[in-house]
């Protein structure tokens, strides 16, 4: 009798142990990992992301572009998603401002970006709050035109622009009100042919160049843009002539991404007549004139021709890693992980399937995960903004060297 009772008890305990293992809903999982594609059901609508920021509430604000029916330039599109990736709000900014450029910068509870007046091409500085309640746009002083890229350094903005009157690439330091603190222009060379790829970039009928701007540890500023007939990485102290230039191959070669590490070391990537090379930890000469084609790098045939590359410095499980995001020929977003200190390859991850996916922005989130913003083409044709959110555990797994 006792044996039978024990048997029954054993069965009941086994049953309840399974019940206790049942899958409970956990909102934390829903914030740690998700994929979202923001869809508009208009046939002619076209949206693409430019940059993304995480907001204090754990959500995301995305700076994007949109196709305009009556303008050659790109319209401005802003989107707010909550921490689960759900759509919250969107703003299609009026066509009196166009051509939004990265970086999308958080400063004093607002998010700043540069854009321009479509009639005068004068650069404008725009700000928006985390909930997209209101967008404020004001022209920058000094008549800076054709913004191409910006960065936020030492509580000031560094803006890269183009002056098509003087045929100059212009780097400027501005305060948050759009006042110019310093500016300098450098000639792109003379002749219509030199300017043509730049204009095509702005109206998006040609190659999209990876314009970038920033500051390195030794106090020099840099920009990745056109200088002296060539798409080059230029180091400057705002003097009349650059301090250093790493030349590309006219408009067919140069750097596709540049992130300063320390000293003269950079995490970078370059393109050269369609080929792509990653240089996770490379010392670059910040003085004199050198050539990017001499730098070598890891060749990645899996990437599309002249691939767009985004680099993120991330701290993962007390380790500094570099995450390269790029577009693969299989129409996925490829993430490549390298040790920052050595440039050693760690692992890779590929996002997306079926529909094409393209990289736009990488953000390490407050929960120590990774958010990847990109463009996908729903039904293989409609450009829409997407977010892939990877959890801290996934990131640690990716950034751990397999023995």
């Amino acid at each position, binding site marked *: 009798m006792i044996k*039978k009772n024990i048997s*029954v008890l054993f*069965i*009941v305990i*086994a*049953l309840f142990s*399974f*019940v206790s*293992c*049942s*899958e*409970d*809903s*956990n909102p934390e*999982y*829903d914030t740690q*990992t*998700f*994929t*979202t*594609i*923001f*869809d*508009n*059901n*208009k*046939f*002619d609508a076209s949206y693409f992301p430019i940059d993304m920021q995480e907001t204090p509430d754990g959500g995301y604000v995305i700076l994007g572009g949109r196709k305009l029916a009556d303008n050659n330039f790109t319209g401005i599109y802003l*989107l707010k*998603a909550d921490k689960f*990736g*759900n*759509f919250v709000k*969107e703003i299609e900014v009026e066509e009196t401002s166009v051509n939004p450029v990265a970086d999308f910068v958080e400063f004093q509870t607002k998010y700043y970006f540069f854009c321009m007046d479509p009639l005068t091409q004068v650069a404008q500085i725009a700000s928006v709050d985390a909930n997209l309640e209101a967008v404020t746009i004001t022209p920058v002083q000094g008549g800076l035109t054709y913004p191409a890229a910006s960065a936020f350094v030492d509580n000031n903005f560094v803006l890269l622009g183009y002056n098509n009157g003087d045929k100059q690439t212009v780097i400027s330091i501005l305060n948050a009100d759009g006042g110019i603190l310093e500016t300098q222009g450098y000639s792109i060379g003379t002749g219509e042919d030199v300017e043509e790829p730049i204009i095509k970039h702005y109206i998006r009928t040609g190659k999209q160049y990876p314009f970038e701007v920033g500051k390195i540890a030794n106090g020099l500023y840099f920009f990745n843009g056109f200088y002296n007939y060539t798409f080059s990485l230029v180091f400057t102290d705002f003097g009349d002539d650059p301090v250093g230039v790493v030349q590309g191959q006219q408009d067919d070669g140069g750097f596709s991404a540049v992130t300063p590490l320390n000293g003269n070391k950079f995490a970078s990537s370059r393109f050269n007549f369609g080929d792509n090379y990653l240089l996770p930890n490379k010392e670059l000469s910040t003085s004199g004139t050198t050539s990017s084609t001499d730098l070598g790098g890891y060749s990645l045939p899996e990437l599309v021709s002249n691939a767009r590359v985004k680099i993120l410095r991330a701290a993962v499980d007390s380790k500094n890693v570099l995450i390269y995001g790029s577009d693969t020929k299989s129409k*996925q977003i490829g993430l490549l992980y390298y040790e920052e200190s050595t440039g050693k390859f760690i692992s890779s991850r*590929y*996002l*997306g*399937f*079926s*529909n094409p*996916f393209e990289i736009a922005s990488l953000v390490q989130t407050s929960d120590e995960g990774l958010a990847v913003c990109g463009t*996908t083409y*729903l*039904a293989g*044709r*409609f450009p829409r903004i997407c977010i*892939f959110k990877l959890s801290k555990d996934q990131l640690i797994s990716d950034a751990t060297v397999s023995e």
Partner: protein
Amino acid sequence: MKRLNLFLLCLLIVVGVFGQEKKRKPSAYNKQKQSQEDEKFLEKQWWLGFKAGANLSKANVEKTYSIIAPTNYEASTIGKKYDSYNLLGSQATIEVSFYFKRFLLSFQPTYQHSRFSYSNSFEWSSTDEAANHVQLTFEQEQKLDHMIFPLIIKYDIYGNKLRPYVQIGAYSALLLNATKSITTTGIDNAAGGENEFATETINVGATDLFAKYHWGLMGGIGVNYNLGNNVRLNLDAMYKLGMSNISSTENRYGNDRLSGVGEAMDDLTLDNISVSLGCLFPMRFLSSGFKTLDK
């Protein structure tokens, strides 16, 4: 083929039990006393059996998830439409039951293969040009293999030769395997005419997308028919009411192939109706001749 094997196994058990039967000669004991002893003996019995059959499933949505987040239209227009009890599954069960005064406590470990499906559609159209219209429809089928561990109480309503019963219980389920297939069809009017197309079906292993364990309640009816030679034929109908989520909350977005086509599993419970046919035979005998006195 699997079903044929199950049937043959069932047949073997029946034949084996038939072969064990021996004729018992009438005894000289007092018939009344014998009858009382027999009745007392028949108050308790262990039964062992096997049954197999078919099932139909229905998914109930607890919370909806979608990768596609509409910005200018209602999310309900692209919601998943679940089909109920439309795809046939199968199951095979080993039954161990203890009988005591018309009540049976029954443990019935079951291998269950269940299927359910749903579909959703997306449309893009132009207000300026009517021909600019594209529609996509995703048909999604899930196939789940579970090991079910039910604990059931049965009650024999009446009878001897024919014994109808009712049953109620609870079960826990262990996921063994899951697959998912997505078929995409569409109509593209923007190509200059009505272009109907279908893409290749995506088949993926989906075990990670489903919960390792879930549980539920169950109830049903059945009938045993005593063949008179230690064997009962059993016809059993059961309704299982899923009580916990069958989707994995952690791995909802874990499959890039599905995320790429906008697919994320909802939180679901699974209801299931099954009908099984099998046989039972007793484990306690009055004599070495395997006579049970079952009438």
